[in-house]
């Protein structure tokens, strides 16, 4: 290989750079000096310049089969579908411990008590795959409303709910009936079973509420055993059930984890007047027919009036 050839080969990258308008000053000078004396490389530079012009045409020339219209239309419809399935979530501290809150375009889809953030994230990932994304800001307003509620500054969570994680139609009906329970009111699992027209399915109701995806907002803490036992809540978090009920003015026997119906106002199914627990034969009626209120205020807040015979307004319970 002659020294001259070697120089030509060495200079080629600089020729390409000069043609592309990307060469530094010293490389450009080197090329200028070289092509002044080397005809082959001068021609080569000219060809690279022509090529640059042709390449510039690539930016403008139409491409066979490059019509993106169909792909764009399919993309738009996929995005609509994905958007409806996406959930944003955040993990926040609260008076009830750490909570995971998730919501979609449709509404709040999950409130979950958590011990380990990692376990909670992997649970959600199993449930939602890559359609769940952590985005605290998207659920921040929901969280603030929940804090107001838990701090007794509001008695209503007016959230639209997304029941995507309700497992069955039966569970949806149980959750819908439970969501109707007003603030400060309680009933029994049998009471919910009656309300959905399945009076024999008490255990199935308890199971459905055990897997309530949106506790607090769907107030499964307001549903107790027929004997007055709180039974369970979110695994072994019965203390949280007591906390939530106390917040709503329900007197809870802290040691026994139970509610004494003798200390509660009573609303018989289908009536609009609430009574003292001793009114008429109420104390013999099964829990499933009754809704109990810890305070008159909460019963009246949803439109019930004091019974005109037992007059709970004149003889309020002293708890």
């Amino acid at each position: 290989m002659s020294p001259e050839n070697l120089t030509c080969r060495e200079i080629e990258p600089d020729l390409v750079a000069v043609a592309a308008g990307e060469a530094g000053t010293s490389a450009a000078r080197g090329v200028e000096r070289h092509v002044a004396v080397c005809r082959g490389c001068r021609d080569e530079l000219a060809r690279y310049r022509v090529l640059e012009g042709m390449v510039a045409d690539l930016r403008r020339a139409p491409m066979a089969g490059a019509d993106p219209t169909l792909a764009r239309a399919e993309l738009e419809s996929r995005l609509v579908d994905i958007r409806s399935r996406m959930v944003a979530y955040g993990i926040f501290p609260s008076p009830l411990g750490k909570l995971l809150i998730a919501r979609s375009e449709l509404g709040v889809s999950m409130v979950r008590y958590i011990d380990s953030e990692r376990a909670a994230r992997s649970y959600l990932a199993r449930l939602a795959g890559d359609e769940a994304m952590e985005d605290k800001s998207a659920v921040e307003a929901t969280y603030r409303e929940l804090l107001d509620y838990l701090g007794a500054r509001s008695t209503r969570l007016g959230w639209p709910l997304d029941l995507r994680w309700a497992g069955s139609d039966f569970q949806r009906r149980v959750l819908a009936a439970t969501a109707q329970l007003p603030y400060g009111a309680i009933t029994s699992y049998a009471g919910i079973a009656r309300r959905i027209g399945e009076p024999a399915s008490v255990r199935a109701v308890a199971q459905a509420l055990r897997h309530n995806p949106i506790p607090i907002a769907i107030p499964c803490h307001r549903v107790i055993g027929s004997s007055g036992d709180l039974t369970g809540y979110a695994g072994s978090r019965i203390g949280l059930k007591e906390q939530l009920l106390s917040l709503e003015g329900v007197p809870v026997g802290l040691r026994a984890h139970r509610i004494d119906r003798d200390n509660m106002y009573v609303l018989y199914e289908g009536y609009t007047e609430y009574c003292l627990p001793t009114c008429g034969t109420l104390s013999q009626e099964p829990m499933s027919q009754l809704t109990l209120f810890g305070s008159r205020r909460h019963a009246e807040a949803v439109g019930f009036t004091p019974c005109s015979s037992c007059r709970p307004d004149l003889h309020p319970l002293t708890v």
Partner: protein
Amino acid sequence: MVRDMTEDPFETVVAAHHAEIHRYLVRATSGPGDADDLSQETFVRAYKAYRTLPPDANVRAWLFAIATNLCRNHFRSEGRRRLAMAAAAAGASERGPSWPEGEAIANQQSARIDLIVAALPFKQRLAFTLRKVHELDYEAIGKSLECSGESARAHVFQALRKIRRGLDDLDVVHTERQP
């Protein structure tokens, strides 16, 4: 820092960049069928990550990086890659000499370059397309291809050399077959 999706909706990103990313993918994959699928996948992935993209990020370069990454996965199976290259080479020999008369010269030349580009090795093909067609800077190209800006530049120059020689070869074929 998270993007406000109401003020900065993803629809504007699709409207601004889909056609260009699709065009890039037609070149990168040597075929419109794959480009349809991969361009959709690019934007689906982008959508899922868009909220958390920093507000000052270069959205266009980011989309090219996602598209390039999908191409890499697409071609990861070597067999698939060989098939694509064989198809491109077959296309070159079938279509090369028989372009219709009267077609605009610029289009003809562009199509010839595209045929050569289709047969380039993966990194050279993508680096060339990103730089010369879509005019990304070498740093952004390096990030897409998982190499330095300097290596990206070297890939582009290699591609230019090969295209230069490839055009000479095509000219030879063209003239030899003339009566």
